[in-house]
């Protein structure tokens, strides 16, 4: 009962597939706790971290890493069925050995067919990775290799069996039918269990710092969805045009299709201490200048914002070397804004944009999205985007308000003497430290690849989801800049 070489190749490939698809699934499932985790992102099973340097973060956060994302938080990672398919291939390969069907042309043809599934999926995912995400994750590559191994081995085995013309009767349709059913069970059982056991994240909807009002007394909101439909839900996004997390969030929102159901306005909140007194370190050099350009652009603001997202990495890098670079770049692209950028009016407007954040007790991080005043929790801006956002929008459409009623919401910090009445409770005397653009470390993606998260945290996300997507980027509060030293 010594296995033929081709079967050994299939079995080893299946084992590799199980291991790497398993690691990818593990990384994905970890995030169901809404926390930040490092990823396995290495060709050596079990080795990890380094997510920021690879496409694992990008892959996992992309919409291609899972399916049914609106039904279950994060969706079902496609690496889960991948792991199940490799397990089935291993089982079927061993079964061929046990039942001495390794020379059976029909049985080996079925094996080749089964192995074609992960191979086909791998080709599709690799194409998506390269074409849409612009990166490839190591775990995914290992799965692609495993897919190639099993398919190659199975095809060789089938070809040999065909040539051999073994005298034994070939596998019956009944046998193949049963095996097909077993294969379906291998995939269906883990998926059904996943759906049944995945934690309920709906209880978090509407519980994250909702807005009590969404007025725009300063006229500083940027209308992002100029062609929004009449039924679109009003939304406010706090963003920084040079924030990678914001860009990644924009991409995710776009691919989710949910952006079409929103009528978004943006409040600019550059994480650049040149103009933002609430941070002690500049996370996005040049963000103040680019924000001024957006505010100067009037109806063309979305165009400037789009450009900023496209070139944000180079603007940040150039401005790091030369503080005037951001101004040069934006004026070169939009010469009609040259006289406005840097003007007293533009500075004042940008300042008012940040004052809006102060007046509404906004957290110091980007991006943040408020849909009809209900905040999309920072933990929901990447993997859970479709799940959470679709529910918030649906609730709005049904006339249901998520979260505590406005009256029960924490009132703005009491500042009896301050007529602004907007100063935050102020535990923070220190400036916020820019939460780097790195999105929270996200787990590597299953076969498919995707992008980083913002994070915001608060993290704040990048062009190419290259560096780990910044989760919304939080910043430490700080004291006013430029307040002059002691006499």
């Amino acid at each position, binding site marked *: 009962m010594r296995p033929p070489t081709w079967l050994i190749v299939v079995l080893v490939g299946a084992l590799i597939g199980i291991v790497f698809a398993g690691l990818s699934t593990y990384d994905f499932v970890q995030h169901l706790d809404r926390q930040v985790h490092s990823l396995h992102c290495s060709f050596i099973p079990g080795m990890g971290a380094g997510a920021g340097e690879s496409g694992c973060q990008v892959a996992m956060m992309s919409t291609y890493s899972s399916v049914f994302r609106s039904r279950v938080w994060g969706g079902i990672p496609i690496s889960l069925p991948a792991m199940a398919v490799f*397990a089935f291939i291993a089982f079927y390969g061993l079964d061929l050995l*046990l039942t001495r069907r390794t020379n059976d042309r029909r049985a080996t043809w079925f094996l080749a067919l089964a192995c074609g599934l992960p191979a086909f999926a791998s080709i599709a995912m690799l194409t998506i990775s390269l074409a849409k995400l612009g990166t490839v994750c190591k775990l995914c590559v290992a799965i692609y290799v495993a897919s190639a191994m099993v398919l190659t081995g199975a095809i060789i085995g089938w070809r040999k069996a065909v040539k051999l013309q073994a005298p034994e009767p070939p596998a019956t349709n009944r046998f193949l039918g049963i095996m097909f059913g077993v294969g379906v069970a291998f995939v269906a059982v883990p998926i059904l269990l996943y759906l049944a056991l995945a934690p309920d994240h709906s209880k978090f909807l509407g519980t994250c710092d909702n807005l009590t009002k969404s007025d725009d007394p300063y006229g500083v909101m940027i209308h992002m969805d100029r062609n929004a439909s009449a039924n679109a839900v009003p939304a406010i996004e706090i963003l920084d045009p040079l924030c990678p997390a914001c860009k990644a969030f924009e991409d995710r929102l776009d691919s989710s299709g949910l952006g079409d159901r929103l009528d978004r306005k943006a409040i600019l909140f550059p994480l650049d201490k040149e103009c933002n007194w609430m941070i002690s370190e500049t996370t996005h050099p040049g963000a103040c200048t680019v924000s001024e350009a957006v505010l100067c652009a009037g109806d063309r603001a979305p165009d400037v914002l789009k450009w900023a997202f496209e070139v944000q990495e180079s603007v940040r890098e150039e401005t790091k070397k030369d503080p005037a670079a951001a101004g040069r770049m934006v004026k070169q692209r939009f010469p009609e804004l040259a006289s406005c950028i840097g003007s007293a009016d533009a500075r004042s407007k940008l*300042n008012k944009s940040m004052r809006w954040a102060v007046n509404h007790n906004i957290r110091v991080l980007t991006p943040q999205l408020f849909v009809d005043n209900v905040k999309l929790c*920072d933990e929901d801006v990447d993997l859970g985007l479709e799940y959470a956002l679709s529910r918030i929008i649906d609730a709005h459409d049904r006339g249901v308000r998520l979260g505590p009623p406005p009256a029960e919401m924490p009132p703005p910090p009491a500042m009896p003497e*301050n007529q602004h009445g907007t100063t935050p409770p102020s535990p923070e005397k220190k400036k916020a430290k820019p939460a780097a653009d790195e999105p929270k470390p996200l787990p590597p993606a299953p076969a498919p690849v995707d992008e980083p998260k913002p994070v915001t945290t608060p993290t704040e996300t990048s062009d190419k989801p290259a560096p780990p997507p910044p989760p919304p980027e939080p910043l430490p509060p700080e*004291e*006013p800049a430029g307040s002059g030293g002691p006499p």
Partner: protein
Amino acid sequence: MTPIRAGVGAALLAVPVMLTVMWIKSADARLEEATATPTEQVAIASAADVGYCSPELKKILRRVLMSCGLMGGDAARGCQPVQAKNVATMSGNDFNALFTPMKERGGIIEFEKNKSELTPEAIALTNQVFSEQKGASWFFVVARASPEGSTEHNRELSKARAEAVMTQLRNQFKDPDLDKEVGMLWLGEEFAQLETTFCEWKRSSKGTCAPEHINRSAFIAWIDCQL
């Protein structure tokens, strides 16, 4: 043979099934735990409150702001010399010293003798200083007159100068918060005349800076204190 095949199948099916169940349950447990544990909050956007905002300074600022119509809902906007002196309860020099930490946040808008119109340079400096609000909550306009002329005339002149600055701000910035954040004082020649040390501040005039020049002025500055 069948039991062996079934065993192999069950074992391999158990791999994705058991791992999935185990990982999900583990994530669920961590989620429950995290939900029950307060997490460190991200900072909340807030107005500035810098180092020089000592309790004593805040006390005086509060008194000035209350008395000058910015806080407390009192009617009249602006403080006249006598009021300012009483409210500050300190000498003119001490009063001026309060503002010295704000050198980088302020400027001195100079006027021609016996005039209250802003020159183009004065308008530019006013706009520049005001547009650099950043996290500040309060903007002070403290207008003065040089000692030439009668006390009564200088009182009116300094008031007109403060109002000229206010009008410029109102016209230029259309800021709905203007009346809540700009505090005006006009001191005439009676209180807290500026010394030439203030010549080092940003001034709208590039000319000579004698005491009489720098006191034909409106001192403007953002104050980065929360009250």
